[in-house]
């Protein structure tokens, strides 16, 4: 029903169309491909072939597609029949003719109207009247346009233009037919004209109305615009002044509307809650520490940073140890009043409280110690050790007895001392300026701090830290990071002074701690460099001389500070692990030649003990060193007096008491219970079957790549083959064309010759006749 239009996609259409009818299974057509082996589970598509059939099918297909395209090559023009209802199978030929006729008549009618000047005939372009278009302003936009288009397309186009879409035409025509069949054609036409005029009028009024409305809307919009937009165009500012009252109110309303709603603030926490939070925080930290101690969470990213940020990072306020202590103290008291005292942090806090109380005592003891040392100086080293031990034990005993009393009177003394402190600080504050620049070099720091008392130095540092808090300026962070290194150096200097100024060192500890909390990385780096430097120098002296001196006091102080800053209980820690090794090196390789060395060694032992006190680890060098010291004393015993001997004997007895009677027993070792390894099962190996032969590549991407490559190759080959076949087919066709043309020509020539011959014969016969 439709003339085939040859386009580019023609061959595709043919290919898609249903294949030729079922091939009859002619046994002479069938070719069977012999198989060499039978492989189980393999399905081959090509065991039976129909070469003749497939060839003929291919040729047929080419004839349908390629040949047609070839014939139409270089022929661009096609003939399309556009007559009304030409391809419509539903119309009967009679109806078709009738319709064509009416259309024809209408067209002639129109032509007649052209010369009728009374009636306006609208000229249109794309279904819009040209007059309208000329009048049109921007105000009327696409909305109304489309509306009109709809009107036009329905009836007008059908009436004005005979052409148009067949279906639409058909529908409208059908309708009209039903209604107006009885009326005459004249009437019909008149009606049509009337209708169209009415419509036109209506449209015009509509349009006017719309225009009016939009103008009105514009004006109204201008009045509102000021309210909506913050910035009013300059031109309209004048309008603003006209009606200020309304605007003000409106603005007010809007402002209130847009204003941020007040958020419900967090409830002010009571002391209790604060204490509980604090405790929880400490508990989590403690848990973290224990985890690290076990070495499981070595790489765990959850860090103590959180607690730093919780405290101070933002407001530039460094939490002082003191007020926290009071807080914790309350906490402790509260809990005593309650029922449970279980957690370690509380214990710690209580201890802290006690320690504060003990401070005075400690001092007293310290003095005693000094005196004793003075006496002991010429005495034996072990004696001193022993005395220390004794005094310690004594103090510990006291602690045990007087713990309760101390707790009772614990409330007042700290307060008093704090007041005193405050007074002192007040006095100091009066003298010191309030801001300090961050020192740029070590000498700057030294200048800043030298000549002040220890309490003042602490104040200076405190203020320096606050003035240069990283939140105040960008460069402050680097400055403070450097300051930490300088402080350590300064502390080292204080310790190596003669006499060492350890009180100041002690006073500076909170600042050092604060800095460390602010910049853990920088602090870690600084301590690491100090440790590695002194470790390296010790190693060198050991190599050169074979023995090294005991580390100096600054190193001891540094080790102590390390223990304060970093958790020594960690399984592995970038600072404390090297510190451990340094201690070990010092205890094993350093020569003990004087009483001073013994003292240093004992300090190192204490430090080592402190390092492992929480994690409960073994420190063999510590035992070795103490044993060595004991050996030293024993060899000296014969030279010394009996007093020393008695002391040693006492010590010996005490140690023996401390060691349990029975030698420790050990259970035989057994490996950890392990889950038994399951037997190997012979499950079939499942291999993905790919659409090409060999399995290549391991990863998914590689396999996919291989598959695509293979597919491409095959497609390429197939395409090549097809192209070759096409050219062969075409060549054959061309040849047959030439042959047929030649045959035709020959035939025609023969025909001509024949006719000529007969003509000639006739003519000759006539001549002969005439002659006769």
């Amino acid at each position: 029903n439709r003339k085939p239009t040859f386009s580019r996609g023609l061959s595709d259409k043919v290919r898609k169309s249903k294949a030729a009818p079922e091939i009859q299974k002619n046994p002479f057509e069938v070719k069977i491909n012999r198989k060499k082996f039978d492989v189980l589970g393999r399905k081959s598509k090509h065991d039976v072939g129909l070469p003749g059939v497939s060839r003929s099918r291919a040729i047929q297909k080419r004839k349908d597609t390629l040949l047609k395209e070839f014939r139409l090559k270089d022929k661009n023009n096609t003939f399309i029949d556009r007559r009304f209802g030409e391809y419509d199978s539903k119309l009967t030929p009679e109806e078709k003719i009738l319709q064509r006729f009416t259309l024809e008549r209408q067209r002639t009618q129109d032509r007649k109207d052209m010369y009728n000047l009374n009636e306006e005939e609208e000229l249109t372009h794309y279904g819009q009247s040209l007059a309208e278009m000329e009048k049109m302003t921007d105000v009327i936009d696409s909305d109304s346009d489309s509306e009109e288009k709809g009107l036009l397309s329905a009836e007008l186009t059908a009436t004005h233009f005979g052409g148009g879409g067949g279906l639409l035409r058909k529908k409208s025509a059908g309708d009209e037919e039903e209604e107006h069949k009885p009326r005459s054609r004249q009437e019909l036409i008149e009606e049509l004209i009337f209708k169209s005029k009415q419509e036109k009028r209506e449209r015009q009024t509509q349009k006017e109305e719309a225009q009016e409305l939009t103008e009105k809307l514009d004006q109204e919009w201008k009045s509102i615009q000021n309210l909506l937009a913050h910035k009013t165009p300059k031109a309209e500012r004048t309008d603003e002044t006209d009606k200020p009252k309304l605007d003000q109110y409106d603005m007010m309303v809007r402002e209130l509307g847009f204003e941020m709603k007040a958020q419900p603030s967090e409830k002010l926490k009571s002391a209790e809650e604060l204490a509980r939070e604090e405790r929880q925080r400490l508990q989590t930290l403690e848990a973290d520490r224990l985890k690290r101690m076990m070495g499981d969470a070595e790489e765990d990213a959850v860090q103590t940073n959180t607690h730093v940020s919780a405290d101070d990072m933002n407001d530039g306020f460094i939490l002082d140890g003191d007020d926290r202590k009071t807080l914790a103290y309350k906490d402790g008291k509260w809990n005593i009043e309650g029922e449970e005292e279980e957690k370690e942090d509380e214990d710690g806090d209580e201890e802290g409280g006690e320690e504060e109380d003990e401070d005075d005592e400690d001092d007293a003891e310290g003095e005693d110690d000094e005196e004793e040392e003075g006496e002991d100086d010429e005495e034996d080293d072990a004696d001193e050790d022993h005395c220390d031990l004794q005094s310690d034990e004594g103090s510990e005993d006291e602690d045990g007895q007087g713990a309760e009393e101390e707790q009772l009177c614990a409330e007042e003394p700290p307060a008093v001392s704090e007041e005193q402190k405050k007074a002192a600080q007040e006095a100091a504050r009066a003298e010191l300026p309030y801001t300090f620049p961050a020192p740029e070099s070590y000498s700057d720091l030294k200048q800043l701090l030298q000549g002040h008392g220890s309490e003042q130095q602490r104040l200076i540092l405190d203020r320096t830290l606050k003035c240069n808090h990283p939140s105040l300026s960008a460069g402050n962070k680097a400055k403070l990071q450097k300051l930490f290194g300088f402080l350590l150096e300064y502390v080292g200097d204080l310790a190596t002074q003669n006499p060492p100024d350890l009180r100041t060192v002690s006073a500076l500890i909170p600042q050092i701690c604060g800095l460390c909390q602010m910049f853990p990385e920088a602090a870690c780096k600084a301590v690491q460099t100090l440790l590695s430097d002194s470790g390296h120098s010790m190693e060198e002296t050991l190599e050169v001389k074979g023995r090294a001196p005991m580390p100096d006091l600054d190193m001891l102080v540094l080790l102590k500070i390390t223990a304060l800053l970093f958790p020594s209980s960690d399984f592995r820690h970038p600072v404390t692990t090297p510190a451990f090794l340094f201690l070990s090196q010092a205890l094993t390789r350093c020569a003990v030649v004087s009483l001073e060395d013994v003292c240093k060694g004992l300090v190192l032992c204490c430090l080592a003990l402190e390092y492992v006190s929480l994690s409960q680890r073994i420190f063999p060098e510590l035992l070795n060193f103490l044993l060595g010291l004991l050996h030293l004393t024993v060899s000296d015993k014969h030279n010394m007096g009996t007093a020393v001997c008695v002391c040693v004997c006492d010590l010996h007895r005490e140690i023996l008491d401390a060691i349990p009677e029975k030698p420790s027993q050990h259970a035989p070792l057994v490996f950890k219970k392990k889950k038994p390894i399951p037997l190997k099962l012979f499950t079939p190996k499942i291999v993905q079957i790919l659409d090409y032969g060999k399995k290549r590549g391991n990863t998914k991407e590689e396999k996919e790549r291989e598959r695509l490559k293979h597919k491409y190759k095959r497609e390429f080959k197939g395409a090549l083959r097809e192209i070759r076949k096409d050219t062969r087919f075409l060549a054959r066709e061309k040849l047959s064309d030439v042959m047929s043309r030649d045959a035709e020509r020959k035939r025609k020539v023969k025909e001509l010759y024949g006719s000529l011959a007969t003509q000639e014969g006739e003519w000759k016969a006539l001549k002969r006749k005439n002659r006769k």
Partner: protein
Amino acid sequence: MAPSTDSNVKDENSQVSYKKDINTKTGRILQNKKHSNDIFDVIEYLQSEKDKEIIFATNACKRVFCQLFYRGDLYVGDLPQEEELMSGDRSAEEKYRIFMRHRYNNCVELLLENMGHEAFQVKEASLCALMKFVEAEGKHPLQNLDLIEHYIFPRELLRTLVEHLLSTEEDMSLLISRFQEFLEMDDVRYYVMSSVRDNIYRVMGRNKKAVIPVYQNNVYTLLSNINVPSQGSKMKHFLVKQAYRPEEWKAGKLKEHKRAFEQMWLLFLKFKLPSSMYKKILVILHESIMPQMSDPTLLIDFLSAAYDIGGAISLLALNGLFILIHKHNLDYPDFYKKLYSLLDPSIFHVKYRARFFHLVNIFLSSTHLPAYLVAAFVKRFARLSLTAPPTALLILLPFICNLIRRHPSCRVLIHRPSAAEEPCDDPYVIEEEDPAQCHALESSLWEIKTLQKHYHPDVAKAAMKINEPLTEQEEEISEVLELSTFELMERDLKAERKTIPLEFDTATELLKSPREVLGVHFSLE
């Protein structure tokens, strides 16, 4: 002729004057026999107070006498006494030669004395001059010798030289190292070796085999500088060329050299040595002495003596013993027992720790050792590990694991599933010297279990390995053998860490922390 007066008078001019003086005099001596008495003056300079004068005079003497040697102006043969010089009826020429020969002898004596001078330059110059004389004497022998029987070499002069070199009072190590260059010459080396041997024999015999540290140190320095070439074909470097049948000359044969070398060392080692000397010798023994000896097994006496001394010396003797056992098929009774008794805490602190562990590893690498023996070693090492520093522990723990891997029958030490769970006393007896009697196989390695709580993470991890069945693959210990504490420290210092945990209990004072120990025992100031 007043030789030294002017030099004594003018100090500032002395430098120029003594040079001029000596130069003119040597010139005259060599020019004319008339002036031969000037040689007295030149020789006298050798006893001068000033080092420079001595050196200059030494060089002058060297020049003069070498020239005389060349001219044949020194008397050859048995030298008559100087007093008899006039009495006998000799020609003037002969008298001159005898005279000069006497001066030569004087000069040599003085030079030998100068080798004990305090200034090194003097010593060096004297040594060089003497070696020059040795060379000259070798070319122009002073004795009438039967060429067929004896090869020409001034043995006597070299012997006295060596005698002075190996002083019993003074450390001559610097001079000996200077002397080393002459030891490159094969004939010198050969004769030095034989004269050293004589010298040791005489000196030590005279001292009734007591220890003479200075002398022995000198001998050691000289001996350790002697290197026999590895191939006989390299022996072509001689101070004195032999005209007659050089191929049969002993100094040109490698075998003779080796024999001399061996005899020399054996004689030296036969006598009692100071302990530091033992260490020195044992350190170089396996590398530079044993390969150069013709029969190293002769060292067994020395090595077993050293092995019995104990301590570091025993450890060092192990190396030599190992070579003897390994390469020379030596049978050493109770070797393992002795090795066992060597193990004490000091092995972790000696300088030769790496070498010792390397050797012990080799000794215990055999899988044919009885289980009780290996168990005893393992147990002993484990016990010692309780006192070891971390660097030693990092060697020791993998080593123990390797031993258990090699000897699966020792696995009961770390895995005894049959035994009841209740704890019992350790049956191992540490005091027992005999590995067979120490009940090691009945014990367990609780020491390693203890070390799982060691403060150093690497050690703790290494100790953790005994909790599970050991892997088949042995761990390589060679790379940790030389590990020093500082290197171990650097591992942690250089490791990149993302976050640094901090102590959350902020401290307020130096001696105030939750777990204060230092503050309990000490106070500030």
